């Protein structure tokens, strides 16, 4: 059963096609050699016989039967390789070195193969010969030939060599094809089996690598990368679901109890109005949180890459900084921009603008009055380095990874408004753009850095 399956694999079929092509060309080559050696020898024999017949015919024309007979007797006893027999119209032997007219049907001018007995050193041997028959004037038959025993033997050997080489080629090819497809099938089997295991729920499984660093390893490696990505996305989704459960319950609960408490006892119109307005504010906050979560999730899937276009980061930086500058001024802070050079990247203008807006918003929000915020854009090698620096409280080193998570807000900043999603969004936008996002110490204050890859 396994064996039969093997025959159906693509690898085996490919091997078979290859084998057929290879066998055909090998066969053509050998046939060519065959015709060029054996064929050449045969043609030479025939030519000699023809020439001799021509000579004998001439002799017959000049000196008649006796002359011809004389020559044949001479040539027959000469010990050469020629075979001769001259016979009367009823095939009775008249002269020649063949003991009798060979037992083959002949007509005038025919070429024949026949066998004859040769006696040398007392031993009689059956040998093959080739000859041409001729009917002379007066009804006499003349047969002139050559012993081609050796030649026929060589031909026979070449033929059998041809046959066996064909058999061996096909046999080896079949075995090779089977071995090859067995090998390929085994590697694919491993991948298929692992895939089935993963589909069956063993999500942590990965394709084993053979270490041969070949195309199968590459395939496995790519599949593993894909699985990792899927796992990450799934992890992200679970996290979003958890966050929604934990962090949206609180404002929803607040909203609900506010309305409930208002209804508990009769209230003035003013009180109702206030309660409703409060509810609207609460709902707006929830909507904003939802939008932020959705945006983060969308950036995380990488789907937004479809909207990427070439853009100049310097323009983005100047625009966003301009949007926030009055806000800084209102807090008696300075917002400086240092973006001396253009920096072309591929990206989503809206998302990058929003990420930068989040960083500048934080910088202004978490820096006391009189502080300074600097937005700088530098081109370093293949990178565009975007930095937002402030002179505020900064974030302790131990918290820098933590604050990138959704809904995380530090104790020190509880009295500022916010939902704790700003930095998560920056991190997601960074990942979407393959840009490294890091937080550092600006001594004093925070420095947030995004390193984009320049467009090539």
């Amino acid at each position: 059963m396994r064996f039969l399956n093997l025959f159906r694999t693509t690898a085996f079929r490919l091997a078979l096609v290859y084998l057929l092509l290879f066998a055909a060309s090998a066969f053509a080559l050998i046939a060519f050699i065959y015709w060029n050696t054996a064929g050449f020898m045969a043609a030479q024999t025939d030519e000699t016989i023809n020439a001799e017949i021509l000579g004998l015919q001439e002799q017959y024309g000049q000196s008649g039967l006796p002359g011809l007979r004389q020559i044949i007797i001479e040539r027959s006893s000469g010990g050469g390789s020629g075979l001769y027999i001259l016979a009367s119209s009823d095939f009775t032997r008249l002269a020649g070195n063949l003991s009798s007219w060979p037992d083959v049907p002949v007509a005038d001018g025919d070429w024949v193969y026949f066998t004859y007995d040769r006696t040398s050193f007392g031993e009689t041997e059956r040998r093959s010969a080739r000859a041409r028959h001729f009917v002379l004037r007066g009804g006499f038959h003349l047969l002139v030939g050559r012993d081609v025993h050796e030649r026929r033997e060589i031909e026979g050997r070449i033929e059998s060599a041809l046959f066996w080489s064909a058999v061996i080629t096909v046999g080896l090819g079949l075995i090779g094809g089977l071995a090859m497809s067995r090998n390929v099938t085994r590697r694919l089997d491993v991948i298929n089996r692992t895939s089935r295991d993963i589909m069956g729920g063993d999500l942590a499984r990965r394709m084993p690598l053979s270490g041969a660093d070949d195309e199968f390893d590459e395939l496995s490696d790519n599949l593993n990368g894909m699985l990792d990505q899927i796992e990450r996305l799934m992890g992200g989704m679970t996290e979003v679901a958890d966050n929604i459960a934990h962090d949206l319950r609180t404002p929803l609960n607040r909203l609900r109890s506010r309305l409930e408490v208002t209804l508990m006892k009769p209230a003035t119109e003013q009180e109702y109005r206030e309660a409703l307005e409060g509810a609207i504010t609460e709902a707006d906050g929830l909507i904003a949180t939802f939008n932020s979560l959705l945006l983060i999730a969308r950036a995380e899937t990488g789907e937004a890459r479809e909207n990427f276009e070439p853009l100049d980061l310097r323009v983005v930086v100047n625009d966003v900084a301009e949007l926030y500058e009055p806000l800084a001024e209102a807090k008696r802070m300075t917002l400086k921009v240092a973006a001396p050079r253009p920096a072309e990247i591929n990206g989503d203008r809206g998302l990058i603008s929003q990420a930068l807006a989040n960083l500048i918003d934080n910088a202004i929000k978490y820096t006391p009055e009189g502080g300074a915020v600097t937005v700088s854009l530098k081109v370093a090698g293949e990178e565009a380095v975007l930095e937002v620096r402030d002179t505020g409280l900064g974030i302790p080193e131990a918290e820098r990874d933590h604050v990138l998570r959704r809904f995380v807000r530090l104790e020190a900043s509880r009295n500022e408004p916010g939902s704790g999603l700003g930095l998560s969004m920056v991190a997601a936008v960074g990942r979407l753009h393959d840009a490294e996002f890091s937080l550092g110490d600006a001594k004093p204050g925070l420095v947030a850095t995004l390193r984009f890859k320049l467009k090539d």
Partner: protein
Amino acid sequence: MRLLIVEDDRDAAAYLVKGLKESGHVVDHARDGVEGLALARAQTYDVAIVDRMLPRLDGLNLVQKMREEGNQVPVLFLSALGEIDDRVKGLKAGGDDYLPKPYAFVELLARVDALVRRRQPEQVQTKLVVGDLELDLLSRSASRGGQAIDLQPREFLLLEYLMRHAGQVVTRTMLLENVWDYHFDPQTNVIDVHISRLRAKIDKGFSDALLHTVRGAGYCLRAVS
């Protein structure tokens, strides 16, 4: 103003109709795309408010059909799909504005007013005037009561937008979209500070203010009548 609402959600449509009627509009309501198309063929409207997802005939297809038939009514798309892609698709299909759900009613109202205004044939203007405030679009200069006002380029755009919509409520989101071309909500209301800066330039030293804050909605540039 006569408005067409094509919205399949019964409650949402009821609130919408009630709100728009109370704001002084005449409102027709269609429950699906086919009904909406029939109404749009039978009546001339000032603005059509169309939900993206409709039974029988999808919102995008509805507007496409209306445009093919030469109906130029300004269309405001409503959609639960608030993604950038969908906004682009909506505008491509012939929509004039796009409002993701959930939206604030004042936002919808302000946008409808802006669309009505847009519909009026707009001759090429070189000068905008509101009261004694003048904006010269050619020399890109502003003055009030003959006194020149020095404006930054963005302030100029902001004032231009406000003046083009003089007498109407303009929301922060509308300003952010039309003046800055941003389609996100900044956590802090940065627009407010820009407005107060502009206000300092055009209203300071004058007894009658032109730039008003509309509580819970946005701003309105209006001359004292």
